[in-house]
C-alpha cells in the first residue's frame, strides 16, 4: 500500500488536485456539476487525452514528439480535401488520411533511429513539414465543411455517453493494456530506462522505437478525426500548440521526461485536470488568456512538488 503510494505519488497528487478543483468549482457555479457540463469537459479533454496517450508512450521510451499537432491537422485536411473537395467517400477519405498520418509517425521513428537525428529535432522538423503540407493541400482554405453523417463522431452518443468520450476510454484501456501486457510495451520501458541494457538483452531497438512513433501518429490521427467532427471544418491552423498540451498532461500525470517510467492513469488525470481548469475558468468568467498562465504554473508546480519530495528523502 505504502509502495503503491510512493511509486505513484505525482498522479495521486494530481488526482487529489483534480478532486479539489472540482469541489471548489461546484461551489462557485451551480452549472459546473450538471451532466451536460461534465460531458462537455469529457469531450474537451478527449482530443488532448487521445494525443497524450501516444505522447506518454513516446516519453516513456525517452523520446519526444513535437509534431503531434501538425499530424492531427494532417488527418483533418487530408480527409477534407479527399472527402469534401474531391467528393470521395468520406469513410474512405478518413481511412486514407489516418494511414498517411500513421506513416508520417513511422517516418519520425525511422529518421530518429536510422538517421540518428535526436527526437526533439526530428519532430520539430516534421512539425513544420506536416503543417506546410496542410497549408499546401488546403490552400489555407478553412471553409471546407464535412457532411452531417461525419459529424456523428463528435455529436453521437452510445447509451447517452458522447462518442468522443467512448473513443478516449477505449484508447486509454488499450494503451494501458499495451504497456502492461505486451512484450512491445515492456520493451518501451526498457529502451527508455536503459537502451544499451535493452539492446544487450536482445530487444529489437529499431522496431520498438519506430513502433512508439507510429502509435503516436495513430493517436494523432484518431484525435484529428474527433477534432474535425467537433469543428465541422478543416481549419489549417488546427492543433497548433497541441504538442504542449499533450506534454503537459503527461508531465502533470507523473511520467518523467527522462523516460523509463510512466503512468497512463496519470496522463488521464493530467488531461482531465487541464480540461476541468479551462472549463472552470470559462464558467466563472475568467479572462481566457489567464488559462494559459494557470496551466503553465500547474505544470511547473506539479513537477516541483514531486522533485522536492524526492530530494528530501
Amino acid at each position: 500500500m505504502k509502495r503503491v503510494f510512493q511509486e505513484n505519488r505525482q498522479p495521486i497528487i494530481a488526482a487529489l488536485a483534480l478532486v479539489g478543483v472540482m469541489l471548489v468549482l461546484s461551489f462557485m457555479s451551480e452549472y459546473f456539476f450538471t451532466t451536460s457540463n461534465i460531458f462537455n469537459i469529457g469531450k474537451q479533454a478527449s482530443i488532448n487525452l487521445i494525443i497524450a496517450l501516444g505522447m506518454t508512450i513516446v516519453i516513456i521510451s525517452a523520446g519526444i514528439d513535437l509534431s503531434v499537432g501538425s499530424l492531427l491537422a494532417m488527418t483533418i485536411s487530408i480527409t477534407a480535401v479527399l472527402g469534401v473537395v474531391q467528393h470521395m467517400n468520406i469513410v474512405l477519405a478518413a481511412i486514407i488520411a489516418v494511414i498517411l498520418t500513421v506513416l508520417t509517425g513511422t517516418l519520425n521513428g525511422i529518421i530518429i533511429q536510422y538517421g540518428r537525428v535526436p527526437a526533439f529535432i526530428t519532430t520539430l522538423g516534421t512539425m513544420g513539414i506536416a503543417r506546410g503540407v496542410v497549408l499546401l493541400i488546403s490552400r489555407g482554405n478553412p471553409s471546407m465543411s464535412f457532411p452531417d453523417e461525419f459529424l456523428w463522431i463528435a455529436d453521437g452518443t452510445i447509451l447517452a455517453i458522447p462518442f468522443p468520450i467512448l473513443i478516449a476510454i477505449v484508447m486509454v484501456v488499450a494503451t494501458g493494456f499495451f504497456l502492461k501486457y505486451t512484450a512491445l510495451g515492456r520493451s518501451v520501458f526498457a529502451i527508455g530506462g536503459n537502451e544499451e541494457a535493452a539492446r544487450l538483452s536482445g530487444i529489437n531497438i529499431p522496431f520498438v522505437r519506430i513502433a512508439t512513433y507510429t502509435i503516436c501518429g495513430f493517436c494523432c490521427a484518431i484525435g484529428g478525426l474527433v477534432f474535425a467532427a467537433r469543428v465541422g471544418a478543416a481549419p489549417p491552423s488546427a492543433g497548433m500548440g497541441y504538442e504542449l498540451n499533450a506534454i503537459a498532461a503527461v508531465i502533470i500525470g507523473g511520467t518523467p521526461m527522462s523516460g523509463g517510467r510512466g503512468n497512463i492513469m496519470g496522463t488521464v488525470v493530467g488531461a482531465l485536470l487541464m480540461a476541468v481548469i479551462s472549463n472552470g475558468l470559462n464558467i466563472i468568467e475568467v479572462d481566457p488568456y489567464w488559462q494559459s498562465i494557470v496551466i503553465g504554473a500547474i505544470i511547473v508546480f506539479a513537477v516541483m512538488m514531486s522533485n522536492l519530495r524526492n530530494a528530501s528523502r
Partner: protein
Amino acid sequence: MAAILEVTGVSKQFPGVLALDNIDFEVEEGEVHALIGENGAGKSTLVKIITGAYQKDSGTISINGKHVSFATPGDALAAGIGGIYQEFSLVNTMTVAENIFLGQQPMRGVAIDWGRMNKEAGELLNRFGVNASPTDLVEALGMATRQMIEILKVVHRENLKILIMDEPTSSLSDAEAKILFEFIKALKAAHVSIIYISHRLDEIRLISDRVTIFKNGAKVTTQNADELTIDDMVTQMIGAELKEHYPQKCTIFGEQILAVDGLSGKGFEDICFTVRAGEVLGITGLVGAGKTELLEAIFGGTRFTRGKIQVGGKAARLRSPQQAIAAGLGLLPESRKEQGLVLGLTGAHNVSLASLDRISRPLLDLASEMKTAAESYSRLEIRPNEPRTRVVSLSGGNQQKVVLAKWLMRDCDVLLFDEPTRGIDVGAKFQIYSIIVELAKQGKVVIVSSSEIDEISGICNRVLVMRRGKKTAEILGERVNRENVLAAISGGIE
C-alpha cells in the same frame, strides 16, 4: 604516532535500517587504514559521514583533537580530508587540467589563466608518472588513467591530511594496481593518512597498516594487518568460516559447443579458441587487452571484421545481441549499471528482459514472470527478497545477481561473464562462483573474462591470456593456478 582522526560513538539511521551503530574508529598520521566488510556493512556510510556527504545522528568526530562537523564534502576538503569514490567524479567532456583544477582554477583577473593551469597540471602528471597530457579530454582516456587523474585531483588540493580511497583498484588490472600501491607508499611517506576501502583482501594485506572490519553497521574489530590472514578477515566479515573458497571445478567435458576461429575486430586480432560443454574458460590480461571487446563481439554487441563463430557445430550468424541470444548465448556485461540493468524497472522486469518472447502467449504472462523471478531471488539469495522492488535501490552484489538471474531465466547454452565480481562483496562473489561452476556441471559453456587472477585461477578449467588484443598464452587443466596465470600475464610485459 598520534591519531589524526578520531571517530567516537557515531551512529546513523536510515529509514528502516541502522546503517552505523555506535562506531569508534581512529586513523593515525601516515597510516593506511583499511575498512573492510560486505556491501551494506557500513564502510561507505562511515566515510560519507567523515567527509560531510551524510550527517551523523550522534557521536563526535575530531581532527587533531578538535571536534569537527562538516556540512558538505567541500568543508571537509577545506580541512584536508578528500576522497575518491567508486564512481568517478570526473567531468568526461573536460580536459585533464580542467578536471584537476575544477573550482580552483588559477586566475588572471577575472579570466582563467589557461597557460598556468595547463603548465601546473603537466608538472603534476610528470611528477607522478601519469601518461596523459593536460589537454587530453578525460573521455578519451582509459579507465586506469582516469583513476590516476581522479587521485591527482584530490592530492593536488593543498594540505591534504587524509585521503579516502573507495575501491581504487576495482577497475585496474593487477599491474596497474601495483603502480597505484607505489603511489600510496609515496603518500604515506609524505605523512598523508589513507582510509582504504576494498573488497580485495590480498591487496589489503599488502598495503595497509591496520584493518577495521565492519559487519551489519557495527565494528567487529581493529587489528594490525600483519596479524590477520585472509581467512581471518573473511571469517570476521561474514561471521562464519568459509571453508572452501572456490567450488570444486567440473572435470568431465562434453561435446565442443563454441568455436571461435580467427576472430578480428576493434581491439582484438586473430583470436581462436574452442570450448566444450562443462568447461569454464577464463580470459585474462591487463586492462586494455581486448577482453571486453572480444566478448561483446562474440555476443554481436559490436561487429567483428574477420573470422567465424560456430555454436553447437554449426556456423552462427551473430550480427546482433538478438541473434546471439537466439543462438543460445548470454552476456553478463562489464558494467552492470550501464549495460546490464534497466535501473528504473523492477527486479522481476529485469529478470525477464531477455526472455520476453518466452512469456508472450501472446500477452505477457505476468504470473509466470513473477514466479520465475521469485524463484531466482530465492536461489541467488537476492536481498531484499522482493522482486517488485526497483533494482536501482539494490546493492552492487545484489544488482549483479539480478543480471545473472536474467540469463538463468533465458537458459543459455553459452554464458559470457565480463568481470562478474567487480566491486561486489565476498559473500556474493562466492555465490556467483558456485553458480558458474554449477552451470558448467549442467553442461553449459561458461566464459569468464576477468582481471582478477585469483578468480580466474580459482574457477576456470582453461585460461586464455590476452595482451593488446592478441592471444599470448593458453593454460590448461592442472597448470591453471595463480602463479602460472600471473607469470603468463606479466611474461607478456616487455
